[in-house]
């Protein structure tokens, strides 16, 4: 979602929408092309079908307990139609609401059946309950937003202890805590299939860091000096893989000044 908070203005709003050569325009010309982007912004001002419905009801000063279903349904359908004409992906929720409205409308036309207790049930009751329920939280959200917040309206005091000599102990972290944090991340990313993260054998990662550290102390490092024969073949392979990984990530480059001369590694960017 985005942070649009402008109040929704409908094309049917009786207040002038524009002044052209001294003339007030209260309605959009029928043939006016609404760019899809603008329509999206307009629709995003609503938080969903309930919000749109509430807006329609409020706009006409209708008592929420006495909604003229036919009229509201007609307006609602106009909006849904408008969304269609600009070929917007219609959110399913808007269509569900349209169906609910249509159902209520049809039930209002029919004689009401008696239910078990013998009292009549107004077909609008459930919708009204939902609208009210939504509205109160909409209001609560507004109020929450008005409340003084840290970092926006109020700031906590923290002053210096400069001249005092005492050691503030640093938080200590156990390996277990670190692992739990990581498993949290992994669990979350599993749900989010777009970025899978794999954990490679750590020795390659470590080697990458070591190579970069060497390149921070020295601008050019000879290729061969990064291999330690004592580590055996596995060590050589790991180091080489680490180099390739860094090369692929655009972090280092290989430099050879003369043909068949020694190969050097160099950081692509050297700052700090």
């Amino acid at each position: 979602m985005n942070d649009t908070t402008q109040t929704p203005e409908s094309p049917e709003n009786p207040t002038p929408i524009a002044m052209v050569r001294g003339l007030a325009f209260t309605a959009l010309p029928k043939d006016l092309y609404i760019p899809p982007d603008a329509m999206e912004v307009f629709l995003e001002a609503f938080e969903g079908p309930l919000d749109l419905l509430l807006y329609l009801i409020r706009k006409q000063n209708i008592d929420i307990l006495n909604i003229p279903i036919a009229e509201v349904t007609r307006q609602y359908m106009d909006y849904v139609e408008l969304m269609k004409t600009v070929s917007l992906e219609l959110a399913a929720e808007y269509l569900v609401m349209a169906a609910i409205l249509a159902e209520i409308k049809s039930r209002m036309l029919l004689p009401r059946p008696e239910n078990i207790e013998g009292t009549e049930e107004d077909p609008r009751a459930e919708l009204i309950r939902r609208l009210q329920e939504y509205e109160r939280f909409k209001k609560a959200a507004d109020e929450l937003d008005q409340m003084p917040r840290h970092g926006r309206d109020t700031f906590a005091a923290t002053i210096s202890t400069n001249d005092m000599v005492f050691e503030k102990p640093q938080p200590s972290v156990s390996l277990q805590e670190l692992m739990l944090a990581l498993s949290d991340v992994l669990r979350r990313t599993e749900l989010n299939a777009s970025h899978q993260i794999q954990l490679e054998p750590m020795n390659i990662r470590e080697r990458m860091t070591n190579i970069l550290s060497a390149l921070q102390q020295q601008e050019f490092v000879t290729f061969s000096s990064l291999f330690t024969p004592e580590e055996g073949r596995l060590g050589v392979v790991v180091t080489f893989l680490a180099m390739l990984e860094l090369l692929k990530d655009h972090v280092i480059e290989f430099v050879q000044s003369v043909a068949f001369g020694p190969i050097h590694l160099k950081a692509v960017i050297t700052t700090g």
Partner: protein
Amino acid sequence: MNNVTPELLVQICEAALMVAGRTLTIAVLQKLFDETDQPEAQQIRAALSTIQEKYQDSGIELREVASGFQFQAKVALSPWLSRLWEERAPRYSRSFLETLALIAYRQPITRAEIEEIRGVSASSHHFKTLMEREWIRIIGYRDVPGKPALYGTTKNFLDHFNLKSLDQLPTLSELKDLACQEAKLQVQLELTSQETEMPAENTETITESTQELEAATSND
């Protein structure tokens, strides 16, 4: 308290609250003193209210929030103070705030319940941000198929909004009962039973869950 005069006690509490960089409880303030000198909670309270009075006309004030006491700049000064930082405080979208409001007022609540009330599917991003800020957390799972997580707010949330407890939240507006309204309008229709079928939705369940929540969060 033999060696600590009331004036010194006030000074120590004042300085401690200023340098701590976190909220302090009365218990923490007591522990700043040797056991032999340790002031009573009541004496600390008295010192704190002396401080509160002393700062009446200052740019800052001593406030009590969920996790303890804290010095804060006065809200009215925020237009000037916010210029101290380049980054603006984030603005939250309405959908974000609605989600937060529902969790705050209706906790423990599942994501599906939030979606049902709002009439739209909930943004995962909002939940992530709320969890990241440690304003909400999972406080349990409902024992129904799928074991959906139940969300509740944290002390951080209360602190951030300068609240001591959940019941300081503005009260929710009341639901008007359609059936009652109908009955008033149609007086001539004598209905036998006024036991309306509008679900006896308990409009205020906050107090209950507040207690539960405090029980859950206060064990540190």
